[in-house]
């Protein structure tokens, strides 16, 4: 469950982030929605290491194998004897391998990027079209509530929450709404518990 506050400028959005952290929410629960990228830390800290490049690398290796199989493997399976030339020619095989390696790398990079972004979004999430027009959104992931979970490395953002998790989800949302309104939120958009 997420709650989104829409702000007119960066300053009020940053005030809201500070307020939420002071209220007991953790940095990992807070995300910003902006129309242009801001450096890490201006609004929120992502601090996550990206993994999609490893998928791109794996795609490249798969492409190299596929290219080799396509050019050299099929030449071996369907031999065409041309004069004294070898059945498996290194030069064309290298060209085909290069192209398939690059193609698979590019495709894997794109797929990895979307997977890491968790797009396409399958369920509706809080959003305000004013973000496209330059407003700033501060999105808070609300914990289901009832039990405090210690914030240890590897604990997901919706689980990682300290004392505030002892409050119910509704109470957490009310608290977050108050903090964001005090910071100058134009409006608050909530997502119902599924």
């Amino acid at each position: 469950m997420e709650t989104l506050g829409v702000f007119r400028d960066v300053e009020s959005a940053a005030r809201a982030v500070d307020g939420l952290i002071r209220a007991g929410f953790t940095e990992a629960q807070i995300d910003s929605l902006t129309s242009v990228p801001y450096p890490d830390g201006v609004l929120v800290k992502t601090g996550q290491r990206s993994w999609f490049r490893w998928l791109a690398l794996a795609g490249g290796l798969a492409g190299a194998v596929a290219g080799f199989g396509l050019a050299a493997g099929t030449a071996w399976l369907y031999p065409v004897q041309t004069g004294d030339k070898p059945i498996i020619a290194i030069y064309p095989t290298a060209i085909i391998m290069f192209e398939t390696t690059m193609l698979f790398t590019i495709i894997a990079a794109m797929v990895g990027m979307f997977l890491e972004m968790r797009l396409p979004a399958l369920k509706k999430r809080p959003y305000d079209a004013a973000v496209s027009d330059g407003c700033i959104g501060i999105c808070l992931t609300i914990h289901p509530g009832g039990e405090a979970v210690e914030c240890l490395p590897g604990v997901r953002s919706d689980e990682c929450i300290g004392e505030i998790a002892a409050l119910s989800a509704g109470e957490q949302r009310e608290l977050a709404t108050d903090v964001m309104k005090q910071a100058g939120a134009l409006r608050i958009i909530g997502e119902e518990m599924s």
Partner: protein
Amino acid sequence: MSERQLEELREFREFRESEETPKTPGTLQTQKINDDLLSSLRPPTLRWYVLALCLGAVVAWGLAAFTWQMTHGMYVTGKNRPVMWGFYITGFVFWVGLSHSGTMVSSILRLSQANWRRPILRAAEAMTVFCITVAGMFPLIHLGRNWTFFYMIPYPNQRGLWPNFRSALLWDMTAITAYIIGSSLFLYLGLLPDLAVARDRSKGWQHKVYAVLAMGWRGTAHEWSVYRKASTLMAALIIPVAVSVHSIVAWDFAVTVVPGWHSTIFPPYFVIGAILSGVAAVITLMIVIRKAFHLEEYLTPLHFDNMGKLLLVISLLWSYAYFVEVQTTWYAHEPIEWEVFSFMSQRYTPQLLIMLAGNTLLPIFCMCFKRLRRSIGTMLVVSLMVNVAMFIERFLIIVPSLSHKNMPFAWGSYSSSWVEISVNLAALAGFALLFTVFAKFFPIVAVTDVRELEARRAEVSMGRAKVPSIAGEED
């Protein structure tokens, strides 16, 4: 303006004057940038339909000519022994060359963090996709028995045939396929945040289409972080693909033993030529887009100045490569090589002079002067001339060499037929039509990139000083 447009404008003004108007750093307000750059997505005007209809008519004429060729055989073209590559392969090399620069220029400028690149990226990337699509048609048209084109696709079949990867045609097919897919993904990647903007500002079926294409993009910090890394990676990946495509096209020629073609300088020479024609085409498109969508505020003389400098450098490089090739032939005076060059310079003197003027004299002279680089009229003439000259250059590489090969008793000549000319004109019209339709449905200037540039220009107060805003982030 239609009623709907007036209504939208009224709503926009009300929003701008309201309390909710966001205070975005920058010299231009975010809404204004959105409004200006998405104005091209408004419902088509009568003038747009007329243009699309004219272009469609030329494409239809080209299709009719191609049908005529299929039903009557290849004799309706000007191709004959010994010149079996004519206008179609000229067109293929020319369009591959044009495609080269769009993505390449975009990638290089992105990686070098040249901020002025931002308004021109989209046009350059879209140009690449459409040019390579058009280029990919030519080998198929040139095939002869066009309906057997699928023999090139490797799949197990009853005929027991398998494509021979030692054929340069298969290298072309693989490279072009990789480049079309790579360039399309690169274009889509750049479009992603802009599609979200278009989604937020559209209604009805357009909103649904943009919503699907935007994939639920919200612009979260995490999305931006991954997006920027992916953009940089893709820019780095697409450059070697672009270079390889034109190198492979050059190898179509260089790995043969045809005089005039069998040269080690061909791949870099082709790549340089491709970038030259591509940069010129980007300039031409920038001028057209600027005029058509009234984007004078975004495509400023500074952009033309910088593109002019790029054109100057590439033109100098091309001139050097051409000089090296001719000088080596002349000094070695190898009989058959010299024969080809002599034949070309005598039989095609006007074309040779136009090529040298368009690729060397005109761009080098004009682009040396800031005033001329910033003159839109001059840039239009120079960029168009470069591409006319580049088409001629492709022709002069192909036809003279095939006309005068090693055996004098088999020398011949070539004249293009109406069918080949029609198909080439249809290719040009097809490209223009694709671009026109694209510009109507997608933001032709990168909205997010321009907004980011505006945000970077902003200044904030620090004590008594004004310092640059930190909005925006280096790649």
